[in-house]
């Protein structure tokens, strides 16, 4: 069986590169095939890569506080461009200021993201979640 492919990148005008590399390594070690687009990735670039590689999930990172603006509309764009079943994950410092994570999670789930992660998340949990969600999708 071929490995699951996922698309990874930091969205918008955000150039935080270190965390991005750590996520890539951690997921690869968990046996997931990661296509890492790096930093400053636009919504369409995520979707382009997902179509071409037949990816099952897109993992969006945002560290610089503009996540709410940058991430809005990605689900709709995926549907428009034919990716109706793709999993969308988002994580990082998603908003500016101190807000309860539960509120943040609500906002991003409403935008159509399947899972939302705080900056403190254990990456092995992300990998576990991914595998479960992908298995659920396949069944």
């Amino acid at each position, binding site marked *: 069986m*071929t*490995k699951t492919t996922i698309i990874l990148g930091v969205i918008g*005008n955000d*150039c935080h590169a270190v965390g991005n590399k750590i996520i890539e390594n951690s997921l690869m070690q968990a046996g997931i*095939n990661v296509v890492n687009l790096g930093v400053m990735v636009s919504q369409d*670039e995520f979707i382009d890569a997902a179509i*071409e*590689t037949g990816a099952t999930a897109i993992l969006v990172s945002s560290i*610089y506080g503009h996540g709410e603006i940058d991430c809005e509309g990605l689900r709709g764009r995926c549907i428009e461009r034919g990716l109706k079943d793709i999993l969308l994950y988002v994580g990082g410092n998603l908003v500016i200021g101190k807000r309860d994570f539960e509120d943040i999670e609500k906002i991003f789930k409403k935008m159509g993201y399947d899972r939302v992660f705080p900056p403190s998340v254990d990456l092995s949990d992300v990998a576990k979640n991914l595998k479960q969600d992908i298995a659920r999708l396949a069944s």
Partner: protein
Amino acid sequence: MIVAGIDIGSTWTKGVLFDVDTENDDVRIVKRSTLPTRIDNLSSSFVKVLREISGEADPFHLMQSGQMKLQYSSSAKGGLAVSAIGLVPEITLSIGKIAAQSAGARLAQVFSYHLTSQDLLTLEESSPDIILFAGGTDGGDSQYVLSNARKIAETSLNCDIIYAGNRSISDDVRDILKHKKLTVVENLLPNFNEPQPEPAQNAIREVFLKTIVKGKGLDEIERMTGGISPLPTPFVVLEFVRAIHKEVQGWEEFLMIDMGGATTDIYSVHKEVPAIGTILRGIYEPIIKRTVEGDLGMRVSAHATARVGASNAAYHRMEIEPEKLINYADSLINKPDFLPADQQSKNMDQMLAGICTGQACARHVGRWATMFTVEGEVKVQTGRDLTKLDKVIGTGGWLSRDSEFQPSSWFSDYTIDTRGQEILMPKHFNYYRDEESIFPLLANLAREYPKAAANAGVKLLVKS
């Protein structure tokens, strides 16, 4: 060693007899000859040129006895037309385009995502020489590719099809297209961040060779010369550019404009090393890149060139009105050999050449978009940054002849594109002219003596 180099073009057949000093990698030009090409029988002008440069009525016995070698190329078919099919325009289609053009082909059409019935009709009507069919990384998308394969299977197309897509479904594609002339090669994008255009390029070149020798007398030349095959001119020129890059000190990076009547071809040798604060986006480009602009040319394509047009500043500088340029260009359609005599026509030609060189380079080079981030200003770069390139070569009939023409004044018309992005054209450079118009012939010589030919090429350039 005595080597005859001949290039069979659609208008002229040109030959040079070279004396190669293999010890010092030096070349002496012994004799030159140029005769009109007979399109219906390429061998007659070829033999005449070979006789003239070798000074022998039977030049073939010189070859049999080992006193003379021969290398020849042909562009008489006007370049092979390739239609490229990819999945996402910015990804597999983009790599497909680079692969086709760098292999010496001309892009006829491009298609992405699902082929529509209209696309298939267009394909059938234009009947390209080759279809380059790609899509999906290895193990990636199969849905689009298989659906497109089934659609192609139902067409009447009988050209060569090169499949360079998702490897996981190559058996299915082979099965679906088994009644077509199909070649399956390695994927041009096996992994997302690692494009690999070479196998597709090689396959295009193979078909090219097979196709150009068919008919019109090239097969006869092959027989007469004891099995020496011609290579496509654009391909030998590309390899010559590689030879200069590898063999001549100080010429590791340069740009070359080959402007003809029908197309303007740009070659550049450049290794991308992004500066700090610059982020590279988009697909990787090979170190040696060639682009072909079919709507930019001095004669056959002049009408299209005039309609592409220039900046207001350029019209003002040349004191030419856009309508006048269009009228002039339209008058050239059936005159591929027209040489202007009066000053006004010369200015018009100058203007056309300016548009061809400026536009073709602007399309060839990359872009910078300036973004403001929390960490300050960042430049997002797509394509290649040639702003620091310091050498530009001009070749092809018109550029070789015109000693007054300076591309720099035309390059500076293209600084910002319509989307507000900076165009990464060479800014401060020396311009060198292939005054003898000898590059295609040296390119033939370079097949066997790359170092000597590359040295000679650079030595023969005239700085202007």
